[in-house]
């Protein structure tokens, strides 16, 4: 628009001058999206990073600089260690259950089965349901007085399990709910990966009389490696961001028994109105997930197999 008026001295009036330079078109097209992300994403992120070094709450008029105060408070406080431990247990256990379970189911389903197509459609439902609904639904299923699961256990002559009131079981309950939602996603991803595996090595293995187990370990798994790494990355990113399911099932309780980093940050910010500490917690979460991802990203590269991101 304005460019036509700012006629440049070097460009004489010619039909070609109407054409804006390619770089300008490029940047103009990309600018709105990048601007929005900068403003809504990066600016607040920087803002909260800075504020994690200040006192920042509703009560005090000033926000004095605390240095690493908010961070040291976390690590010297009583409960944050437990929250970190929960996060590690939650992440590792979920990852193992979902990846191993997802792979096992995908391998078993990868042959030609009747009803596989509708089954795949149905498997798409849990990952797409709102985690908030999953959390509330499982809270109801796990209810010790009126819930279905304990009722079934008792009917079978087994002891009822204190799913949500016992500190040990609470974290397990949350892991179960999260695994219920996400394992089907991995099944679908792995099924897609398995279909892309070339048939020749598998047929060769069958001719050699290799057992299914050996074929899986020696041929299928190595070929599936990029898919598995991507799936793990997706899940790690999400596991470090998990909030809804925990918030609606246990609010991190009893005590801190099922508290995760995001839940802790939310509680600090909106129950204690303490944004400084909350920002510090969210940065711990961010750094930790980046660290884990860097490991995952670096490992395949170190072993010389190429990184998953290139897949």
């Amino acid at each position: 628009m304005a460019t036509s008026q700012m006629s440049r001295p070097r460009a004489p009036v010619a039909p070609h001058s109407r054409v804006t330079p390619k770089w300008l078109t490029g940047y103009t097209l990309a600018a709105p999206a990048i601007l929005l992300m900068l403003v809504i994403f990066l600016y607040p992120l920087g803002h909260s990073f800075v504020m994690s070094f200040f006192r920042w709450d509703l009560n005090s008029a000033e926000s004095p600089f605390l240095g690493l105060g908010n961070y040291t408070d976390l690590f010297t406080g009583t409960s944050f260690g437990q929250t970190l431990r929960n996060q590690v247990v939650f992440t590792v256990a979920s990852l193992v259950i979902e990846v191993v379970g997802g792979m096992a189911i995908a391998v078993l389903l990868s042959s030609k089965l009747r009803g596989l197509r509708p089954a795949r459609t149905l498997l798409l439902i849990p990952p797409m349901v709102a985690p908030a609904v999953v959390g509330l639904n499982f809270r109801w299923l796990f209810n010790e007085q009126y819930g279905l699961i304990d009722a079934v256990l008792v009917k079978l002559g087994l002891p009822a399990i204190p799913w949500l009131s016992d500190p040990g079981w609470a974290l397990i309950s949350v892991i179960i709910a999260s695994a219920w939602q996400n394992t089907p996603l991995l099944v679908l991803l792995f099924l897609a990966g398995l279909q892309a595996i070339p048939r020749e090595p598998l047929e060769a293995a069958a001719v050699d009389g290799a057992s299914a187990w050996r074929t899986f370990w020696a041929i299928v798994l190595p070929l599936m490696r990029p898919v598995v790494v991507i799936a793990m990355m997706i899940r790690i990113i999400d596991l470090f961001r998990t909030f809804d399911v925990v918030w609606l099932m246990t609010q991190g309780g009893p005590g801190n028994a099922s508290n995760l980093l995001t839940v802790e940050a939310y509680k600090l910010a909106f129950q204690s109105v303490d944004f400084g500490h909350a920002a510090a917690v969210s940065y711990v979460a961010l750094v930790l997930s980046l660290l884990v991802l860097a490991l995952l990203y670096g490992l395949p590269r170190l072993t010389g197999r190429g990184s998953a991101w290139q897949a």
Partner: protein
Amino acid sequence: MAGVTLEATRPAPVRTRRTGATVGLAARYVVLVLTVLLSIFPLVWLLITSLRTSDELFAVPVQLLPSSVTLDQYVTVFTEYEMADYVWNSVVVSLSTVALVTVLALPCAYVLARFRLPGVKVVITVLLIMRMIPVIALAIPLFSVFSGIGLLDTVLGLVLTHAASKLPVAIWLMMAFIQDLPKEIEESAEIDGAGVLRKLVFVVAPLIGPGIAASAVLTFLFTWNDLLLALTLTSSEAAQTLPVGLTNFVTQFGIDWGPMSAAGVLMVVPTLLFVWFAQGYLVKGLVAGAVRG
């Protein structure tokens, strides 16, 4: 299933190739059926719960099937809770986010895929990292920034935030689809004298229709499902969405299970619709490496 009973009645299974294969096949069907049942049953239970009367909810022992089916809980969510507001806000927020994301992501993805400009690599790397940021790290500062400029508790504030947080995934997805297009098509359009924008809208966009659809469906569902952003950035029925409405059933007074189940069922409806009618796009989007944003 038939294979299982067959095997069970055989007195001494001789392990030939054939029976082994039958057992294997039977096992596969068992796994298939079990997986599907496990995946679906909790939602069926939610539906059953939402159709019970309030006093039967708290019956001990638990009744598997409701003695009578009632829509009372659905009536309650609309009469005693602001469910109509929540639904309306959710629809407006999700659709506006999809529109904004699509309009912004397509040109950006096109530039990243086709233009060799300085800075493009940096942007792509930053996009990747942005997908990893915990939403809470964004929500807390946005809360304070938005409260300063009056965007808190508004639909607009929520749409802008959702759009920004879904953009990285959408750009990434569309970029992958554009890269798969043969360049010749665009070049021939260029010869015809089409400008970049015309080319993008009339040539590229139709060709990557499935990619745009996949990105739109995912953006819609992840916006529709989001709790954390809406929970932090809204505080009244002016902008609260369905998931936040859901948490309003969990107050310090406890949980109103009946209406909550009804609201939960209502929340799942779009999910089911998309899974049914747009599963191809959903799978494409997910497999192309989409990450919840």
